[in-house]
């Protein structure tokens, strides 16, 4: 299709304008607002005790949820692609539930199961374990919402790699464990890495599911995204600037994630 220059420039302008209004404008705005009163002021807002504790809580959530979902993701992808087990197609469909279920509903679901009056809540309470309104609940909520990413990145790669090399390894006498570590894993490395990046991004930024199971007490169960919400809706001494500062902190973390995405993306064939 030979597109005349007029149309090409029009489409380019439309696309660029759309991206400028929607993406670039808001992000630049956040940065400008944060440093309006100088770097020192912004820095002071991200180093208050509440902000530091929120930062570490976010890191903790990601540090537990991401490895769990990565192991599950690789394992499930192998079952989905390599095995002929019954119920495979059902499993395939069920994996996507977190993409369809609202994060808020996920949070509610966890309250109903693990809360004090929930299905298993009394058992946990009897054993002195608090899940809802505690970091444990926030971790489970994050696992829920970020569960499909790794499976969905690894499965297509696994399909594409094929089984020839694995069969060769087995023929040469490798155990299935050796085959996995020496042959399968290295060949799907790119997919796994991209899945980890997507899971991390979601884990750091999740608010809906986490908000429901958090007690919203500063310093204990407020993660960085919740702190942004808190500082916007109940402005403290720093007012809205404090919220912008935390927003920028999160944005910087996400830019690092985005950089990782970009570096990993040229090799990926499937873009979901």
């Amino acid at each position, binding site marked *: 299709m030979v597109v005349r220059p007029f149309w090409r420039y029009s489409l380019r302008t439309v696309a*660029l304008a759309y991206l400028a209004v929607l993406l670039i404008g808001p992000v630049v705005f956040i940065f400008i607002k944060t440093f309006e009163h100088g770097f020192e002021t912004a820095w002071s807002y991200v180093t208050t005790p509440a902000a530091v504790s929120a930062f570490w809580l976010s890191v903790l959530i990601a540090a537990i949820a991401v490895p769990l979902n990565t192991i599950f993701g690789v394992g499930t992808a192998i079952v989905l692609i390599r095995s002929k087990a019954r119920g495979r197609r059902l499993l395939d469909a069920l994996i996507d539930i977190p993409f369809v279920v609202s994060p808020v509903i996920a949070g509610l679901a*966890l309250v109903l199961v693990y809360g004090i009056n929930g299905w298993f809540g009394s058992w946990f309470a009897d054993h002195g374990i608090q899940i809802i309104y505690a970091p444990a609940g926030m971790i489970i909520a994050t696992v829920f919402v970020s569960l499909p990413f790794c499976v969905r990145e690894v499965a297509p790669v696994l399909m594409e790699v094929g089984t020839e090399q694995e069969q060769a390894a087995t023929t040469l006498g490798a155990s299935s464990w050796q085959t996995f570590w020496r042959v399968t894993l290295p060949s799907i490395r790119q997919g796994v890495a991209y899945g980890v990046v997507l899971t991390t991004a979601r884990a750091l930024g999740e608010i809906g599911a986490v908000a429901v199971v958090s007690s919203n007490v500063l310093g204990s169960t407020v993660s960085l995204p919740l702190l*942004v919400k808190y500082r*916007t809706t109940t402005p403290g001494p720093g007012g809205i600037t404090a919220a912008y500062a935390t927003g920028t902190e999160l944005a910087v973390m996400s830019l690092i*994630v985005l950089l990782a995405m970009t570096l990993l993306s040229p090799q990926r064939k499937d873009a979901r």
Partner: protein
Amino acid sequence: MLYLSVFVLIPVAAVIDKAFSTGLGDFWTSVSNSISRTALENTLVISLIVAVISAVMGTIVAWVLIRDEFPGKRLLNAIIDLPFALPTIVASLALLGLYGTGSPVGVNLALTKTIIGVALLFVTLPFVVRSVQPVLLEIDTEVEEAASSLGAANSVTFRRVVLPALRPAIVSGTALSFARCMGEYGSIVLLATKVPIASLIIYNDVESGTTQSAAGLSVALLVITLAILFGLRTWGSIRGR
């Protein structure tokens, strides 16, 4: 399977159980009262509009990124993923500041449905772009050239050759966008303070302890979302034949 059960299946079953725990009557009350009805209606209408705009604009952006050449294209291609990486609450805060009360660009959309739509367009931007891009890259331009050299106008070539090839990718990207819109919370929590939106009503219900009505609304929201996704998939496969 156990992992999936502990984290996903049992909790979702608990929501459905809770919604009907006190009988069908209470379930109906929880979804048919005026707030729930308005919230579901707003959520559905806004999500449908956003899904359509996202499909059209996503396809245009994907086309420009694949077929057009201009300086800075690679950078632009990289920032398409930004909404996946940027926490949604940050997007919410930025849009509130930029297009809300006291906007530096003179656009005050605070408390309107439009600003909710803008937030949803932000978070759903990558879905269509990223599903259309690889397909557009693989389409053989020879078929398009053949159509053109046989005298087909650009509009005909687009409708008869390009669009049918892209349709499955556009439909699946749009389906993901739509599902995301229906349940979205983070990017609109600071914006939808006056307009009832299902996910925010559910959140408020949980906070105030009325979990039965929250569960009822959740089930209704899920059923509507699944029905539309099913319809979209059926339509896609019929047209695809």
